[in-house]
């Protein structure tokens, strides 16, 4: 048996997509949309339970991309131009930093902002985890419009993330990375690891030079391959077994290509790149993989 994880922005249902269209045209009220989002989220949580997914995050149905609500909740950051996400045909609004970011919104309350998406109305069920883009990815996907030192910016983002975790009573957090670290060292995450359990979804396979200096361990570290040395920095390891960029459905049996340190399987990117119907099937398959592995 392996634990299974579904994280990040999940595709909207046809009903939700249409509801957003109607809301944008002023045909339904913000409260009505909020209620539809709530219903859709709880239907999602039920599906996770039904499919045997043990760990899952808020599906972020009220988000337009993985950065925007965070950006809209912070001072000194503005939304820039639409920008392509990696090699996909999906676009996000590039954040522009004009100073040290500070959370200034109550993230637990639903609120409509000038820019479309309501703030992260974390309608979490009893089990769902928080999801955030890693500070490293947030900065790399942004433009610095002020003379800011990157290390200062990264540390300040960690401080703000700790505030978010506290606002949700210390919920565990899935931290998502879009880019390989290269020579980048992420030890500045240590205070965040101290504040709550963190599952890191990394790109590539992090190396000693990326992790050196971390005093606290990740709860799990999911990479694009298995390296037992990562256990120096994580209680367990995970692998990516399902593609979020292909509609082909994976077989339910998973090769035992990992060693005993691997106890978590998940997908290789957040699922929002797939049609909803396919994402739902992949979740079921992931659940079965966990059972049969």
């Amino acid at each position, binding site marked *: 048996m392996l634990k299974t994880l579904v994280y990040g922005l999940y*595709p*909207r249902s*046809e009903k939700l*997509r249409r509801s*957003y*269209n109607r809301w*944008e045209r002023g045909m339904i009220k913000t409260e009505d949309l909020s209620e539809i989002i709530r219903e859709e989220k709880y239907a999602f949580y039920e599906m996770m339970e039904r499919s045997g997914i043990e760990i899952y995050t808020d599906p972020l149905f009220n988000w*337009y*991309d993985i950065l925007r609500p965070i950006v809209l909740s912070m001072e000194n950051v503005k939304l820039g131009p*639409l920008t*392509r996400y990696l*090699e996909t*045909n*999906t*676009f*996000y609004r590039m954040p522009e930093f004009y100073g040290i970011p500070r959370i200034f919104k109550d993230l637990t309350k639903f609120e409509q902002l000038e820019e*479309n998406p309501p703030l992260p109305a974390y309608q979490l069920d009893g089990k769902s985890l928080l999801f955030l883009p890693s500070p490293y990815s947030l900065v790399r996907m942004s433009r610095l419009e002020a003379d800011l030192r990157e290390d200062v910016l990264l540390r300040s983002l960690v401080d703000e993330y700790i505030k978010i975790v506290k606002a949700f009573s210390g919920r565990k957090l899935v931290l998502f990375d879009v880019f390989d670290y290269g020579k980048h060292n992420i030890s500045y995450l240590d205070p965040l690891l101290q504040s709550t359990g963190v599952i890191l979804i990394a790109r590539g396979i992090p190396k000693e030079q990326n992790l050196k200096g971390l005093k606290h361990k990740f709860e799990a570290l999911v990479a694009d391959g298995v390296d037992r040395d990562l256990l120096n920095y994580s209680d367990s390891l995970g692998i990516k077994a399902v593609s979020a*960029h*292909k*509609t*082909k459905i994976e077989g339910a049996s998973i090769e035992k290509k990992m060693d005993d340190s691997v106890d978590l399987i998940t997908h290789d990117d957040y699922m*929002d*790149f*797939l*049609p*909803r*119907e*396919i994402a739902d099937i992949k979740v079921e398959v992931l659940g079965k993989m966990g059972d049969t592995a």
Partner: protein
Amino acid sequence: MKELITQEIGSFRKPEYLARDFHKIEGTPRFKELAEKATRETLEVFERSGLDNVGIGGEMFRWEMYEHPAERIKGIIFYGMVRSFDNRYYRKGSAIDRLERREPFHVDEVNFVARSTDRPLKVPITGPYTMMEWSFNDYYESREDLAMEFARIINEELKDIQRTWDKVSGGRKLEIQIDEPAMTTHPDEMDIVVESINRSVEGIDGEISMHVCYSRDYRLLYDRIPDLKIDGYNLEYSNRDLLERGLSDEKRPGFNDLKYFTEINESLQRRKFIGIGVTDVHIDYVEPVELIEDRINYALKIIKDPEIVRINPDCGLRTRSREIGEQKLRNMVAARNNVLKNL
């Protein structure tokens, strides 16, 4: 060769009677009747506006540039909508088997439009790289393999169009426009772009142009012009330009990179023509004739030879109402006429 030929790029807003029921009636005699009616009305708009080349009558037979061909290819299946940005979604097909053309994409349309006007036409067709980029690849080994398969299919389609054209052209030359909005998306894949486009047009006897828009860096395209078997390029420039009048580099930032195009073009044995987008299709503001004149004159300061410059909107005008679309075309033609008088 005629100087400063005016042309449109492809799509024009569909009349409500066609747009409303398009998906419900597609493939029925009723659809044919309405698509033909809409095409005739759009050709009237284009002719009334004074366009030299009336394209394919505003693409009334097609809903959208990706879906239309993809739905006619065996091996592609649609599972549902995928986010483009915000709450905007599109139907993204999955290549799940070897691709084969199920039926022609545009032959009926070409046949009808050619018989409905005696003006020059230009047939737009979505290019292989964009088809690949906008599809899930669940079958082929690589992105290159998938792009080359789309190229094979597009080549079959173009050969069918050529056969039809020979019967209905009335002596007009065949003009094909390969639409490749995704062309410069991945700089490291420009070899795939070039190979797949060249394969698409293999053996086609006619004038082949290419349309690219909203590229972050046209220089990626310009650098590969010597390798592409393409006669000319119809590109978007006004969206990145200012709305103020003027002929200086500062006033015409959208058109600055024509200098680099010219540098490349002048080094070729056989120069390419360039269709310059002089009206922005993403705003309702109808650019005044004088502003469009400035854009054309600025381009001519760089390119010098009006025989290799064509005048068009940035992209298809389907994003605007038919009324605004027509006003934009009218101003474009008026500006061209004024510039011609002073040449």
